[in-house]
């Protein structure tokens, strides 16, 4: 066990030196931030309103139910806040009314929302005044964000595999595997040690992505099942790529080929009717995609999660059994 960690630590040390590997290590965080930038999240659909501190306590109380309120000392500070990059509207007192201060590049819908809230306040509209019946679809988060997040999570699994492949190719080029084989570490221990980095990446990458994009209230236990399943895919994929390729560039080339089944699985799952879903049943990504999507939409069940996870493990096991002789030979 200790020796597996030694193998792992060595991999991390070397990967930190290499541009591609370092990039792979930090890319999940970048993905998370990018997703947040291009797709507004659950929490971001509320509006940010800036007010002058203590100027109108009653209004502050009223708005609190509908918007995220922040307060500032005076008009100057208010203006400064609005001028910053993100989307904040200020209600600035003007005579006996208010005017709305904005930076100018805010989304139009949000401005309408800000206007409407001000009007509601001025007319003292309460939630109970609404005559609309409420039909609840459950908590809905933006589909684009979900889609991106889900794809990026699968992507971290591929990248984890890529890291394993890079590290195996390194040992192949330097011919160091033979040197390792004449130390007391067992071959299994070595293989497991080499796998850790590929397992860690989808683990920390997926959790990081979920937290950064604000999905912290999902069913984490079910999510963990699918993350662990992704690790299996990542490790298997890494060893296959590592053994079949003699240079990192070749391996990167084969990784590109993987976007086809990944994209295909997502496209079929999203665009085709139930009748055609079987076309991509053989692609492990299809099942993880489905499972993760159910969790992200809060519609998952243990039964489905386990079925999807089981199918992925099953497909991986078949591939592994078919490839065992090759893997063993490749690591001689």
């Amino acid at each position, binding site marked *: 066990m200790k*020796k597996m960690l030694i193998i792992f630590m060595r991999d991390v040390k*070397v990967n930190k030196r290499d541009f591609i590997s370092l990039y792979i290590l930090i890319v999940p965080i970048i993905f998370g931030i990018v997703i947040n930038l291009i797709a507004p999240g659950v929490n971001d659909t509320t509006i940010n309103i800036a007010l002058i501190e203590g100027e109108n306590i009653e209004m502050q109380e009223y708005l609190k139910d509908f918007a995220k309120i922040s307060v500032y000392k005076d008009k100057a500070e208010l203006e400064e806040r609005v001028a910053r990059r993100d989307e904040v509207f200020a209600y600035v007192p003007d005579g006996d009314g208010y005017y709305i201060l904005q930076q100018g590049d805010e989304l139009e819908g949000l401005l309408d929302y800000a206007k409407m809230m001000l009007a509601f306040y001025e007319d003292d509209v309460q939630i109970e005044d609404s005559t609309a019946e409420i039909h609840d679809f459950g908590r809905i988060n933006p589909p684009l964000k979900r889609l991106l997040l889900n794809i990026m999570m699968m992507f971290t699994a591929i990248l984890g595999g890529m890291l394993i492949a890079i590290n195996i190719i390194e040992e192949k*080029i330097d011919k*160091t595997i033979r*040197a390792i*084989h*004449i130390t007391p*570490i067992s071959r299994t221990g070595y293989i497991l040690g080499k796998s850790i980095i590929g397992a860690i990446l989808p683990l920390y990458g997926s959790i990081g992505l979920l937290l950064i994009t604000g999905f912290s209230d999902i069913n984490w236990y079910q999510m963990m099942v699918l993350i662990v399943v992704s690790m299996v895919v990542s490790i298997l994929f890494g060893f296959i790529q590592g053994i079949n390729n003699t240079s990192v560039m070749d391996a990167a080339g084969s990784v590109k080929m993987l976007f086809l089944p990944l994209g295909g699985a997502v496209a079929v799952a999203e665009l085709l009717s139930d009748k055609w879903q079987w076309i991509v049943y053989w692609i492990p990504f299809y099942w993880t995609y489905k499972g993760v999507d159910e969790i992200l939409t809060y519609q998952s069940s243990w039964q489905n999660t386990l079925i999807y996870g089981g199918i992925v493990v099953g497909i991986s096991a078949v591939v592994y059994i078919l490839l065992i002789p090759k893997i063993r030979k490749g690591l001689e």
Partner: protein
Amino acid sequence: MIKVKGLNHSYKKDGKYAVNNVNFEVAEGEIFGFLGPSGAGKSTTQNIMTGLLQLQEGEVTVAGYDVKHIKNEMFNQIGMSFEQSNVYSKMTAKENLDFYRKLFDVETREPQDLLDLVGLGDKGNIRAGEFSKGMKHRLTFARSMINNPTLWFLDEPTTGLDPSIAADIKDIIRRENKKGVTVFLTTHNMYIADELCDRVAFIVDGDIKLIDSPKNLKLQYGEQLVEVEYIKDGDVVKESFSTIKTEDKNQLKDIIDKYEIQTMHTKEATLEEIFIKVTGRGLK
């Protein structure tokens, strides 16, 4: 320390044997040389002994362990320097050794000491990828000592090194051996074998042709040669004659009678000449 009995190995399992009914034993404290031309089966035999190749046929015991069912702990006892150097290019010399030593369960040597020993003392913080071929080879050699092996496998340890470094390496091997380390040395270089080995095995085409000490071999095949330089029809002629073969003896007498002798001395055959004589093959 090593016992090999009836060892056969066929890479493709097609009846073509890279190693053919090989038998030998290496005693504790000995430097045993495995000599033969390229492709003779030296590395194959060594790789079977170190578990890098799966044993197919025969009985092999190494440092008291049966190689058929190799135990990982065996590797605490043995060290191996590879013919082709193999170190992590992206790590410094010191990092290479630091990483490697952690894989053993026994007391290991200080990386800096080992680097000093092989003349890389001031190169510890340079990445091995920037090393010359010779430097990498020395690093590989140094690494093979890190776990204080009692049985030390050396595959062509001086091949490709410049003579002064090769001499250093030879000294190190001698010193370690004095400390009690058993050495299994594989080479096609007769000089190093001659200088270092207590006993040598001649191997050709997967067959061991003989096993003996260099000294015995020379007694047996060597010192019976006489080299004569004489003047015949105004030219200097140089010839060697055996002192036991009747035909040679008569020829020699003839020459002494008929011609003016310039020089004449007994000559010790080199191990290489003996090898050619015994196996009918050169070493290249």
